[in-house]
């Protein structure tokens, strides 16, 4: 494709995975204890999508990457100090109280509106990237809903590989059961791709890239207005995933025996 792609990456922010996550009720909706105080990172699933987008843009001349993110503005700014160094993009911030408990429909709606309002975005070249899942309580439907609102019908979830074929069509590998992939050929944009982990490592920080990005990121953050989210979901109860660690020190056991025991243990779950 001679003019490249317009790649829009949808990405939220989540508390740093090393933090202790403790659900509490905040009014009628749940929240994480001290979430605003904890360091945040770009949602790791969406971050993979960003790295793939940057890589694609670097290899398809004329491409451009936008990062659309709904999050509390000040937290987003802190996250950008790290993320902005990893890839060149233009930030489209939405100052909204989005978190793991937000209504996915509401989040999808404001993200779709923001994408609609991107000046110069060519829908015929649009690749809508995002995370297939989320490190917060992901509903797993946000990307699908955004695609629907933008009337993009070619949608792929759990994407691990994306290749542009010589004729401009797109070969997409979606993750399925058993460590295998479903390979599809799509004629071209517009397309929604919900990424799994992809194949790229996390890029190193490059402050030069960060400085260049910040020239547009800071004004965008300053201009963004606060948006509220409608909450149509009612939570009866929330809890962190069950985690159990049982450590034993066992010597002189073969790999086969260990594998068998692990298999038995997994089967109990």
């Amino acid at each position, binding site marked *: 494709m001679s003019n490249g792609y317009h790649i829009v990456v949808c990405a939220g922010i989540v508390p740093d995975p*090393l933090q202790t996550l403790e659900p*509490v*009720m*905040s009014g009628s909706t749940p929240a994480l204890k001290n979430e605003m*105080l*904890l360091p945040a990172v770009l949602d790791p699933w969406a971050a993979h999508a960003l790295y793939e987008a940057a890589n694609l843009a670097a290899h398809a001349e004329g491409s451009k990457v936008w990062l659309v993110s709904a999050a509390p503005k*000040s937290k987003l700014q802190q996250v950008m*100090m790290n993320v902005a*160094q990893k890839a060149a993009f233009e930030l489209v911030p939405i100052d909204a109280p989005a978190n793991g408990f937000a209504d996915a429909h509401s989040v999808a709606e404001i993200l779709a509106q923001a994408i609609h309002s991107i000046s110069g975005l060519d829908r015929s070249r649009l690749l809508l990237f995002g995370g297939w899942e989320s490190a917060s309580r992901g509903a797993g439907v946000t990307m699908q809903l955004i695609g629907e609102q933008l009337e993009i019908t070619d949608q792929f979830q759990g994407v691990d590989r994306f290749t542009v074929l010589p004729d401009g069509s797109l070969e997409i590998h979606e993750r399925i059961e058993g460590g295998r992939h479903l390979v599809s050929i799509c004629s071209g944009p517009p397309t929604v791709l919900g990424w799994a982990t992809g194949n790229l490592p996390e890029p190193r*920080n490059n402050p030069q890239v960060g400085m260049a990005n910040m020239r547009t990121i800071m004004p965008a953050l300053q201009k963004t207005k606060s948006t509220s989210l409608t909450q149509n979901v009612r939570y009866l109860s929330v809890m962190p995933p069950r985690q159990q660690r049982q450590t034993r020190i066992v010597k002189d056991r073969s790999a086969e025996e260990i594998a068998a025991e692990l298999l038995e243990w997994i089967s109990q779950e």
Partner: protein
Amino acid sequence: MATASAVERETLRALPSDASRQVQWGFADRYDLQLLVQSSRAVARGPVARLVAGGGRNSHEWTEAKAALLEAFDQAGITAVFMEPEEGGLFAGPKNFALALIAFELAWVDGGAATASLAGCLALAPIHERGTEEQKQHYMKLAAPTTPGEDRKPWRGAFCLTEPIPYVGVDTGMLNGKIRIVEWKTGEEPILQVEKRGRFITNIGFANFVTTAVDSDDERIKGSCMVILEEADPGIFDRGTPTRKMVHQLSSTGDPIFNLRVPASRIVGGYDVKDGVLIPRYSHSEVIEAVFRRTRVTVGVMTTAKLLSAVEPIIRYQRGRFRGADTATPGSVRYELGLQAREDALHRLVDLWATGEASASLGFAAARVFDELDPLEKEVEKLYAERGISGGKAKAKFLRGVADEAVTLMQLPRDDARRSTLLSDLRLRFVALDSLADVLCPAAKLWNTGWGAQMMREAVSLMGGYGITEDCPGFLGNKWMDAQLEATYEGPEAVQRRQLSVTMTNPVFLAQFREWIREMREVASEHPGTGACALATAMKLWLWTLDHLQHSKDADGGRLYQSARQGVTFPLADALCWLVAARCQIVDVLRLEKSGANDASLAEGLPGLVKFMTDLCNVQSARASGEVARICAELVFGYDRHPAWDEDGKRACWHEDELDALENLMPGINSYAIDVIAGDGSHPAKAGPCVNCAGASRFLSLHAKLDGCLTGSRLAKDRAADAVSKMMIPEALDYPA
């Protein structure tokens, strides 16, 4: 599931965030620095931490794995920070604060990595500060990291000052390195022979060039200078054997030998020729003074990072100390709080944390002052050139002309109209700020590293036996040892005390110091929990003591405050450091409270964070005040001879029969008499009659007042300890250990 509406009393909820640190340390409006912090952190907690955890510190040699860190520094923008944008740098303007932040981030994991990154800047610093334009352009370009597609290896540099004993080390004037002219053809540039043996030279294992200090060994060269040597220069460029150091093993250190022929254009800052004599424009001491007064601040900040990095692993260790034991079941105090159920463990951690905060505030304040000073200094250098002023004495005289006005400026109320007139004078602004920098730099280097090393021992002890193993999370044992090096290199503690003993008596600084006393009283009035009032009293006590010592003599008639009397000047310098650090800490917390309120990301936890930080200020102020009171009391009374039970001594005492006679006139007087000589001539069993404190009554009254000012400081410590026992910490450290 808990309910958030049941809000507990506001207290610290989590470790201070990046956003809060940006406000506290004054770079919330500098996203370039915030980016740099993140990129430095990624290197520190990534490749550096992995190398340390993998045993990278267990060799003295410069290995491939260690060398790989240099590339990581390049890619993260760390190497380029020292440079201007046209040289490949990230941003224009002063770099002291940026370098301090990098040092902080790298030393959070390993001090050697921080040293390795900063030693390159140290090598370039003489060129940057005093080099000719040609030298600057040439070497900065060579040292700049490569850009994509560029086919070259960036040059690395080493700074070579220290020589084998008995030459330059603690005394930078005792140079053995020599320079002489070996060829000087008419109309051509002289060729120099440079001989130098270095000791403990960082980066020498891989340096492509060396900036080194040498003295003239030729009557055709005047004085000393710094010279740039390159590895390809004809002669001997022997990197020597690696130093078998027990600290900072991720940096390359060795004892090189140089015997090289170089053109005279390699003299840093250039030279003039007068009557057939080559006169370097800057002596080696002028160059290193310009360099060290900046780089020493970053060293101070390296120890700061160690202290603050110890907090999280210690809390985790304390809380989990008994988990796994049969008797420590979930829900029990032993399980939930572990060692944090014990007051002592918490109090000692609070002391450590408070020291770290004060140390950070002092170090970063010093770095910010140098960022402010740098452009002023350049303007003043232009003034010197315009007016044809050269030489240290002439420059000092030129500046002394406005010293009195600078003192006046300090004393003026903030709303006084004369301030703006005085501040419009460049020379005056420079003198005022320079006097502050002259104190903050040695104070940050001395106190942060010296007291920091002591507190790192405390940090290690708080981890029990674990602390001195390689498995200790946060590498605390390594950091303890590393802190000792930081207290030593780039000017050991004695050098910093010596410098302070001079700069702290500068009337311009003292005028500023008096202003700080007033400022702390004002702060105390509006923020009574900060300990600012106690600090103000301690400052007053210190000031009184300085004045007293400057005008007093010891029991043998010797002057007390004089250069050679380091038993007087050095402790007083130590005392000042405590005060300066505690003040900086309070100022930073006030900034956090004021500016943090405008930051939405801080809003939620700000009251609790400020409350905790305020309590730490109180704890630190009390500690500082105690140290100052102890030191000052020793100095004020310690040089008087104690009265003895001799004739003079007894004459000053009551006699039993006198008191009996007076008792009839003044009933009860017996109970007030302290030293009474009995009828048989015997006296109380002690060293001599109690000291008559005539002349020190002001001191005693200030001392007594200071004691009272400590009221509530232990309650602050209790509150801080309680907060530490309840705050959230992450599940694990964010770097391998």
